């Protein structure tokens, strides 16, 4: 009776359906399996399959970094999983700045370096210090993937007060993981006092910021195209005077893959969605969530993620997760911290490693750099 070896094609299909923890462990099975699992093509296929499943929330607060599965129901705070951050030093807080494709962009605070980190595997890479010192107040940042060059990019812009009439000097830099270098980008306008929130919202290959321009007074959405490395404007919903006044928009989000605007009335959170990217006329109301029955302060409600079933998950006051019920009301879910400062992001569990970008010299372990 001959032994029944499964064809390698079938073995790969089995491996693609395993969670990241199993894949890391099974690299030990044999040299052939280690080579199959480490193959960049396999990593991409695994990521594509993993993206179809519920992702995970990454929450950073003064109590540390924790993750939680996005599959509803959430359970209670015992479902939160503590994560070890391999490059974290004592007393330094890890600030989540952006998340894309299973990689997370973080900064050790106060300003002790930027890192790109895969929370599922622990793989990480410390970024070289930006050329022009970005020690000023960082007013814009963003992280995303450029499919045209298979590259991950970061943008960071800061300003410093200068002792002359111009008041501020602002600098912007873009980092490319493949090139492993920062590059200055031109700002012809200083948006520092216009941006509502510093985090750029990734959607359709661009990072987006919502600005309040003063002359003439209007809202604008400015987008940075990661492939072209240029800014362009995205139209806001068209003002129609006949319509009843809707809540002014306070923030921009990517919910369910679409660019969304969030506004607050005294009783509801209003969500609008750009149905077709770039088309101003395609802005349409999505749904509203009632919150007045719960004692919450509206401006501490931070929309984070939209489930496949259309439920909105929010972070409230940096302390807890809340969710909208199918009936359109908000309710408490999981408490995780007792401080106001926290960031959260959504990530996919993948094998993607920042060290696979930028040539062979990155294939070594980077622990030494952290000392």
């Amino acid at each position: 009776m001959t032994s029944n070896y499964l064809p390698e094609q079938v073995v790969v299909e089995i491996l693609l359906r395993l969670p990241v923890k199993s894949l890391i462990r099974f690299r030990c099975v044999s040299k052939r399996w280690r080579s199959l699992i480490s193959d960049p093509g396999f990593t991409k296929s695994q990521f594509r399959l993993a993206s179809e499943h519920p992702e995970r929330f990454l929450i950073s607060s003064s109590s540390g970094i924790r993750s939680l599965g996005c599959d509803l129901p959430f359970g209670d705070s015992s479902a939160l999983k503590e994560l070890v951050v391999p490059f974290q030093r004592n007393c330094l807080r890890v600030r989540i700045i952006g998340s894309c494709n299973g990689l997370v962009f973080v900064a050790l605070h106060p300003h002790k370096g930027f890192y790109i980190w895969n929370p599922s595997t622990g793989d990480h890479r410390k970024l070289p210090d930006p050329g022009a010192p970005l020690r000023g107040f960082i007013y814009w940042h963003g992280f995303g993937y450029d499919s045209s060059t298979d590259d991950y990019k970061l943008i960071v812009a800061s300003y410093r007060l200068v002792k002359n009439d111009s008041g501020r000097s602002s600098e912007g830099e873009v980092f490319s993981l493949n090139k492993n270098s920062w590059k200055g980008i031109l700002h012809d306008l200083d948006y520092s006092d216009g941006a509502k929130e510093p985090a750029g919202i990734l959607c359709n290959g661009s990072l987006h910021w919502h600005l309040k321009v003063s002359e003439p007074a209007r809202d604008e959405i400015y987008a940075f195209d990661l492939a072209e490395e240029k800014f362009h404007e995205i139209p806001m919903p068209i003002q129609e005077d006949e319509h009843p006044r809707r809540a002014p928009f306070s923030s921009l989000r990517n919910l369910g893959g679409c660019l969304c605007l969030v506004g607050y009335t005294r009783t509801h959170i209003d969500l609008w969605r750009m149905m077709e990217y770039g088309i101003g006329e395609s802005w349409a109301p999505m749904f509203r969530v009632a919150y007045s029955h719960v004692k919450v302060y509206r401006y501490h409600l931070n929309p984070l993620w939209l489930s496949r079933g259309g439920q909105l998950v929010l972070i409230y006051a940096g302390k807890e997760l809340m969710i909208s019920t199918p009936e359109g009301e908000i309710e408490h879910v999981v408490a995780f911290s007792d401080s106001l400062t926290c960031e959260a992001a959504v990530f996919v569990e993948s094998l993607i490693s920042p060290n696979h970008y930028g040539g062979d010299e990155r294939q070594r372990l980077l622990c030494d750099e952290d000392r």
Partner: protein
Amino acid sequence: MADDGVNTKVEAVSKATTETIELRTEDGGVFDVDKPVAMEFLILKSFYEDEGRVFDKTSIRLPNVKQLELSKVIEYCTRALEFGAKSAAAAGDKDAERMVRQEREGFEAEFVDELSNEMLKELILAVNFLDIKEMLDFLIRSVANRIRNRSVAYVRQFFDIENDFTPQEEDQIHQENAWAFEGVDAD
């Protein structure tokens, strides 16, 4: 003479109900399979449809398949077609759709539970040969579920793989990713 008459009559009757195909396995098994089920085997479908053959010769020999595997394959494919029909009938009714889904999940869980590791692999080889996409995907998912929380030793035995790492190399991989080896099912 009398026998021919009887056989012709039996054939005529079965043509009037469902067409079947006779499949013979390599270990002497003979199965009468309903045509819709047999057409799920792409290897047969292309033999008949692509080559434009008519169902006159209704007995086919399957060289790489044994009786035990074929009976399991027929069982799964027959139920899969039934679930497909039920799903289509329930379309639009969320509760009915959920019931069909749960029924299917129950059947699949039971089906896989009864399979030993050896049988699971034999089925994959048979289904891969017969080219039945849906069942292959189901079996692949079942193997992934079965091994996901198992040890490296278990997986080596399951796939018949020899360890070609030196003890030092293996130790190093362990140390670099100790967290991935925690909480694993005992062998």
